[in-house]
């Protein structure tokens, strides 16, 4: 397994206002697998992704990422683990506003240890995402579809074994959304584990496996 989360518990707030975002959730993804986690807004999908990706320590349960428990590591080592093992894509893209498309993609190489092949890889991904003519544009000059493809290229730059996508198509039109889904499926097919969380039932068919979540629990 590339990633395994078992009996994950995460609550927010205190007393009356306690929200159980993850209530003993278990989820695993293997190399080459494309898992879709579907559930309504607020059911804990983003929390689950951040926990699996080594960004948010669970209050209960256990995460194993590339054979290690990221939360048992020092913050430095955990950051390193993220840099090399995980790619993230978010609904809001989170591109650095003052960097070009190419530089945004290369941001993934900032932490992962720079190598000249990162540049070649960036150019390949930019071409693959159909962004060649947008290479030197800033995020503000891009359409939402182009922004998300830039974010995707950034997530894939270091060829992470695990790619976590949080509603990547939420802000996109049909065609762009499909392009992103195709790229994700393709990435899974190349041997990585891809976990996509969405509220949109459209993507069920395209997933290798679909898991349903409600109120912080996996229901199917």
């Amino acid at each position, binding site marked *: 397994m590339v990633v395994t989360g078992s009996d994950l518990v995460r609550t927010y707030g205190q007393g009356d206002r306690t929200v159980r975002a993850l209530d003993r959730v278990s989820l695993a993804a293997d190399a080459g697998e494309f898992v879709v986690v579907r559930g309504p807004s607020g059911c804990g999908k*983003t*929390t689950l992704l*951040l926990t699996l*990706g080594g*960004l*948010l320590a669970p209050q209960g349960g256990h995460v194993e990422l590339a054979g290690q428990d990221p939360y048992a590591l020092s*913050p*430095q080592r955990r*950051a*390193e*683990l*993220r*840099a*090399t093992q995980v790619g*993230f894509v*978010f*609904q*809001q893209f*989170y*591109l*650095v*506003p*003052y*960097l070009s498309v190419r*530089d945004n993609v*290369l*941001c*993934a*190489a*900032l*932490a*992962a240890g*720079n190598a*000249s092949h*990162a*540049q070649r890889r960036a150019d390949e991904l930019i071409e693959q995402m159909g962004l060649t003519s947008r290479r030197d544009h800033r995020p503000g000059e891009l359409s939402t579809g182009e922004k998300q493809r830039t974010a995707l290229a*950034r997530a894939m730059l270091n060829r992470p074994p695990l790619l976590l996508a*949080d509603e990547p198509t939420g802000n996109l039109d049909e065609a762009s959304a499909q392009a992103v889904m195709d790229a994700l499926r393709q990435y899974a097919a190349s041997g990585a584990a891809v976990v996509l969380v969405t509220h949109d039932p459209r993507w069920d068919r395209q997933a290798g496996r679909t898991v349903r979540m409600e109120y912080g629990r996996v229901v199917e």
Partner: protein
Amino acid sequence: MMTLRRLLWREILHRRLHFAGCVLAVAAAVACCAGTVLLLRSFDLQTESILADKRQASADAWAQFQDEMRKDMLKLGFNLMILHREHNLSDPEAQARTLSEDYAQKLAQAKPNTINHVLPFLQQKFWWPERNRWVTLMGTTGEVYIKSSQQKPMLQAVPQGGAILGYAIHKGLALAEGDMIEIDKRTFRVRQCLPKRGFDEDERVYVPLRAAQEMLKRPAQITGILAVNCHCGDPEDLLNIRSEVARVLPDTQVIEHHSKLLARAEVRSKSAREADREIERQAATRAELRRSRLSYGALLVPLGALGGAIILALLTFENVNRRRMEIGILMALGLTGGRIQAVFLAKAGVSALVGALAGYAAALAGVATWAPGAGGLAALAEPVLPLACAGGAILLSLAASWAPAQLAAGMDPAVVLLQEGA
């Protein structure tokens, strides 16, 4: 290649106004500090040059004073006459009281400060039987005391067997140099015929003191001493001469022929003294001005530094806050807090260097405006100031942006991304 340095430059170029604000904050702080130092230094340089001018003026005044006094003295000749206390000048018919001849020696040995020519004389109306007329017989030795060997005697001694004739005498009797004359059965050779001097002096016949004493039957006696009371040093010494002479030579009176000169000396010495006092006054005024400037500086420097630091801290906080999402995603991509912090501290460092340059330039421009001329010299006189500005600016910037950079480093990417996503 993508590096943190590239990230830094891209951000600076993207948010130029923010960067300009940081630079301005540092520049203002540096300008306050460097400006204060440069202004004080240029003030000191001005003070030095002003005082140097005044000192020169004072030295000139004293030199001119002494030179003029010397010239006056030369014109004046003997200006002091020391006579017996009971010698009545207003009654020429009265029997003159004489002094002992050794008084001249005594005075010379006492070496009074301002007397440098001492000439004993014996003078009395004398009937010249061979020529049937009254003359003033004047017996003198050479000068017994000359203060400085460089000084020429004021009056040559009358050589043994010689006589010097006043204008009225040689004109009236048609005598010339080299003529032999007889006075009361003594023979003298005319050594010099004096030009017209006026009144009493033209009626004089100068002979050696010894001869005069014998002719007037006053052995070892003198009428008085002629002296030159010179103005060589302090003009106040002139005023003390009476008491000094009285101490050395009892039963004498001092007659001064230099009241006009004295008055002029006093005026001149006053103006020379005034020049000295002007230096002191000027020095005191400048010192007072410097103190007040220093106290302004003592206020301005910490205020400027503190103000700059606060503005820089606020601007960095604003920068960190605005870049939350960026920080969150970079951390999600595996950047550690330490490297995030480094980005902000590096930005502070760059602001500091550019700000130090701008601030130092502004300080120079300010000093050049407020203290024209001295500004460049002040800058040259403070060669390490630019380095100190750069170093100080970097320390100030790092200190001011430490807390916000720490805040950025301590951000939890999960919290940021959850919030940004909400």
